[in-house]
């Protein structure tokens, strides 16, 4: 059955209430019963929840075949937790395991082996990259992977579509009761926003830390009342890969050109007024837009009310300069973001539910004015792909992209027209991860296109000197330089389901042969 972004969704997937995507607000306002975890009450005295090892924790939660385990990705490519825990589970002989992580990256390559061995049979994540992306794309995972946005993951957990048996939560600091924080310790990641829903909805919660601190470890992002056990290990991550050195503005002239266009687009559109809210992705041109915004803010004597999402130095800089009233933080990308959150009284941690979930009573993204995001591909219907590469292999992450695009009043996609020999603007993206109806403006190095659904924004931009064009024209330029891409040789079998934020099916990714 074709869905609202014209993707053919196989009927066999449309069971147990699953529907095809029917527009971003198709499920707006529905009522639902929240899922709840099955937890153990404790009336007796207890000095400590600390267990000697991960193996002991696995035994203590009465781990069984077929269980679903969850992880967060605050440690990014420096994460040791996923591999450490999965190694023990596999060594203990368990099988048919589903990993439900907030995201997975190249540091998790060893999991690919467990998939090939048939031990890990389910993957639910936002990001999938490296070897894991390859083995899933090549059809080695027993069930289709389910890929969700950050907000969509919270929704799926809250609505009971994912039931987490054991959440393993890596924490830079924890006390003996499991009050855990993203601050301090050897593997400082700033916040633990993605793990909030895991702590509240998993049947069993195990906090793993390398820095045990005095009780109570307050303020705590993960509260001891939700935690069953605490395990202390030598290292939970590689600090140098958890938070990179301060994010610097790109010096690439192409990035700067696009960043300047983005800032001028914001200046010219109607939501640019005192107290607007703002988010950027972590890509070069998106981040650099901050630099061009500063003089524009000063020129008009305007300040922002809040910045949200993944935070790095440019956002902290705007906060410290008084150009932004506060930051609501769900992830920190660099040491500057990590150092600022909870330390600067105007830099707050929020949960992923607060940030982006479509299933609560309104998340921050719903109140966002501008978001600047990147794309691997964008098609003439403004549909964006941030998950599959030009070879059809899974190598990306929807992350907060679909959530912020849907929520923001003005969603700006910024991307170079070409990446090497690939056209970024194309007839039809390989995989739809963000529907075109949520995308308002495309900024490229070759010009700016406005979604025809937003004549108001087009009219505003026509009063500027910005190089306006159409998305079809951009595609034509791209194809005239590098040619139109050949169709990818996908097979029939579905290897991954792209879920829209509301749980409907936005697209599927099919099996592909490795390139010879």
């Amino acid at each position, binding site marked *: 059955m074709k869905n609202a972004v014209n993707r053919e969704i196989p009927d066999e997937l449309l069971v147990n209430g699953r529907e095809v995507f029917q527009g971003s607000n198709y499920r707006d306002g529905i009522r639902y019963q929240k899922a709840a975890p099955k937890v153990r009450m404790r009336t007796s005295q207890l000095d400590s929840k600390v267990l000697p090892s991960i193996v002991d924790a696995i035994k203590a939660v009465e781990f069984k075949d077929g269980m679903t385990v969850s992880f967060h990705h605050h440690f990014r490519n420096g994460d040791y937790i996923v591999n450490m825990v999965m190694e023990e589970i596999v060594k203990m002989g368990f099988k048919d395991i589903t990993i439900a992580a907030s995201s997975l990256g190249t540091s998790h390559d060893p999991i690919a082996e467990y998939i090939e061995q048939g031990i890990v049979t389910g993957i639910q994540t936002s990001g999938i990259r490296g070897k894991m992306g390859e083995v899933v794309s090549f059809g080695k995972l027993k069930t289709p992977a389910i890929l969700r946005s950050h907000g969509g993951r919270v929704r799926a957990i809250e609505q009971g579509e994912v039931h987490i048996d054991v959440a393993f939560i890596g924490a830079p600091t924890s006390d003996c009761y499991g009050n855990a924080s993203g601050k301090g310790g050897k593997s400082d990641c700033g916040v633990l926003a993605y793990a909030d829903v895991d702590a509240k909805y998993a049947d069993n919660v195990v906090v793993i830390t390398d820095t045990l601190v005095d009780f109570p470890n307050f303020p705590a992002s993960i509260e001891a009342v939700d935690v069953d056990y605490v395990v202390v290990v030598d290292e939970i991550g590689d600090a140098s890969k958890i938070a990179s050195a301060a994010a610097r503005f790109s010096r690439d002239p192409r990035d700067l*050109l696009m960043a300047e266009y983005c800032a001028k687009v914001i200046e010219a559109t109607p939501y640019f007024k005192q107290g607007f809210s703002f988010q950027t992705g972590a890509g070069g041109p998106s981040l650099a837009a901050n630099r061009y915004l500063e003089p524009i803010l000063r020129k008009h004597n305007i300040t922002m009310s809040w910045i949200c999402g993944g935070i790095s130095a440019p956002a902290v800089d705007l906060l410290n300069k008084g150009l932004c009233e506060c930051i609501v933080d769900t992830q920190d990308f660099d040491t500057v973001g990590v150092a600022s959150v909870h330390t600067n009284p105007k830099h707050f941690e929020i949960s992923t539910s607060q940030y982006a979930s479509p299933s609560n009573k309104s998340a921050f993204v719903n109140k966002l004015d501008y978001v600047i995001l990147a794309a691997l591909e964008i098609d003439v219907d403004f549909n964006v792909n941030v998950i599959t590469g030009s070879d059809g292999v899974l190598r990306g992450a929807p992350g907060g992209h679909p959530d912020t695009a849907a929520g923001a009043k003005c969603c700006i996609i910024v991307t170079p027209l070409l990446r090497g020999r690939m056209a970024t603007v194309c007839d039809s993206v390989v995989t739809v991860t963000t529907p075109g109806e949520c995308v308002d403006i495309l900024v490229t190095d*070759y010009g700016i296109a406005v979604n025809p659904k937003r004549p108001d924004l087009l009219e505003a931009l026509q009063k500027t000197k910005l190089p306006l064009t159409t998305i079809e024209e951009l595609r034509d330029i791209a194809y005239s330089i590098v040619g139109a891409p050949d169709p990818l040789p996908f097979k029939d079998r579905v290897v991954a389901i792209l879920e829209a934020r509301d749980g409907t099916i936005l697209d599927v990714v099919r099996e592909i042969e490795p390139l010879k």
Partner: protein
Amino acid sequence: MSNERRLKRLRRTMMFLSAQRPGLIKDAYIYGADSLMIDLEDAVAENQKDSARFSLYNALKTVDYRGTEVIVRINALDTPHWQEDIRVVVAGGADGLRIAKCETKQDVFTIVEAIEKAEEEFGREPGSTLIMAALESPLAILNAYEICTACPERMIGVAISGGDYRKTMGTKYYPDGYEIFAGRANMLVAARAAGVQCFDTVFTNLDDEEGFRKEVQLIKEMGFDGKSLISPRQIAIVHEIFAPTEKEIRDAEKIVRAWRENEAKGVGVFTVDGKMIDIAFIPGAERVIEMAKASGIYEGDL
């Protein structure tokens, strides 16, 4: 475009790019410079000249530069490279070439002779390859007028090359520009006397925006047509400083309109706002309007 119009086109910004960097030369027109200056000389390592020529030739043959002028800086006459450079420039169909370290009119003749041969060899229209000369020494400055007038049908103009000029003058860069003032001024006078264009040298400290603005303001006031650039970041600043003011545009419009009306009536001399105007004022006024259009600030209908 006729050769005469090609010679006189607007060249506020001429951006240098190394021919060795395909990622740059493939689409550098997106930054909006008036001219691109693709370099085969100093930016290309001695043992990479062949590969740079190869990249350049293929770029010239395949890339649509969308109206942006493409000029190639070739290696100097005292190198073994310049003949092959010229063949590539002409075969690829670049708009023109920049003669590095040009010191005498004989240097121009030598280059033009090689261009003529190449135009014949590759079936290009004779005279279609324009030239400009980089003046990099005191001798070059003293010979500026002869160089400017050596080949009127191909000569765009002259550019002072600050690095080598300062070196041969026994000085270095100073923010006030006195060290290069004599060179700039003499070259400018020669270029204007010969009726060709005149371009200033590069400003190399990308982090000193204030210094750059000061220098651009200075050369604009002196009467230069434009400036060589090393980064896309410098383009907008030059265009901004070279852009005429609103009053300059209004005055230019009045002059052009009045001229058209009076010319139709057979009147050669008239007054606008109390000032005497004759045909001598028309090219200047037209240039202001052209500049305003190029700067994206012209909203009139001339």
